[in-house]
């Protein structure tokens, strides 16, 4: 999927379409490239696998799961963005990053040929959080950057805490 570049809100030239997953977290719609997902699991089905972080200073990471001998931190997307509290039911385990997303539900799958650049007026953390904006018939939805939520600094601190003691959930 192309990341839109210099021109405001103009996508790159039409390319082949790639699937995206539109999900809801904290009542807000977001999207993520389907190729960034390794696995989608219900929270119920993960209950036996997840470990709780005992000293989570990061309130939006409460659990870890193991995949391929690596610890993935489960980020509550609603809590991370300060969205209204909801009852998440799904965990999206991401591919290639040590992060899984706790979300309310999958809204739909869709296909996009490009995403629109975030307007330059947006100059905060959102430039790291999002790859850009996906335009659907019902509006613009931020396209989550799989590498954008947990920084290396976050991971370093979380690793230190995880070593300090994880207990089964």
């Amino acid at each position: 999927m192309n990341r839109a570049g210099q021109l405001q809100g103009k996508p790159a030239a039409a390319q082949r379409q790639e699937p995206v997953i539109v999900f809801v977290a904290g009542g807000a719609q977001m999207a993520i490239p389907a190729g960034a997902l390794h696995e989608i699991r219900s929270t119920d089905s993960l209950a036996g696998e997840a470990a709780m972080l005992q000293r989570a200073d990061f309130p939006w990471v409460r659990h870890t799961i193991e995949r391929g001998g690596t610890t993935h931190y489960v980020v509550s997307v609603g809590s991370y963005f300060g969205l209204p509290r909801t009852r998440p039911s799904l965990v999206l385990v991401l591919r290639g990053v040590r992060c899984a997303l706790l979300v309310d539900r999958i809204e739909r799958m869709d296909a996009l040929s490009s995403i629109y650049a975030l307007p330059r007026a947006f100059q905060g953390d959102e430039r790291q959080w999002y790859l850009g904006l996906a335009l659907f018939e019902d509006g613009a939805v931020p396209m989550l950057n799989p590498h954008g939520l947990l920084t290396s600094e976050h991971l370093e601190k979380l690793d230190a805490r995880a070593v300090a003691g994880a207990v089964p959930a």
Partner: protein
Amino acid sequence: MSGMSELPESNYVLLRLGPAQQDRFALPADAVEELASASRLDKFPHTTPGLDGVIVRRKRVLAVRDVARVLTGRALLVHRFYLIVRRRYGSAVELEAIPVSGDCELIGGVIPMPRNGDAPEYFAGSIDLAGEQIPLLDLEKLAAAAPATQFAGSRA
């Protein structure tokens, strides 16, 4: 706003951010692209002060900046239009949408007055309209004056 000293007489767009007389402000006409009817505002989490979200206009995504909060001290609860303005980012120019409460007016051949020293930095000066001083906005400084916002994820 540097054009003010070079071209003393110029055109301005008068915009309304509320029902009161003092809710009127002016922008150089050459900073304004068009006036557009209100359309769907899409919001998402972000940390940039002063931005409400985005609108899609002619297949472009435009940031929506709520300047009323800074200029009048209150949010614009009802807006009928977006004033589409040009913002410069280095050599690039991007369009941005400012919600306004009513029609905008083009004022021609006006000589602006310099900024009063006590006035906020985001006032570049003022224009005289039938004896009333209408503040002339400096969009860049106005954008910088917006109060900060904070999202949970950016705390750690």
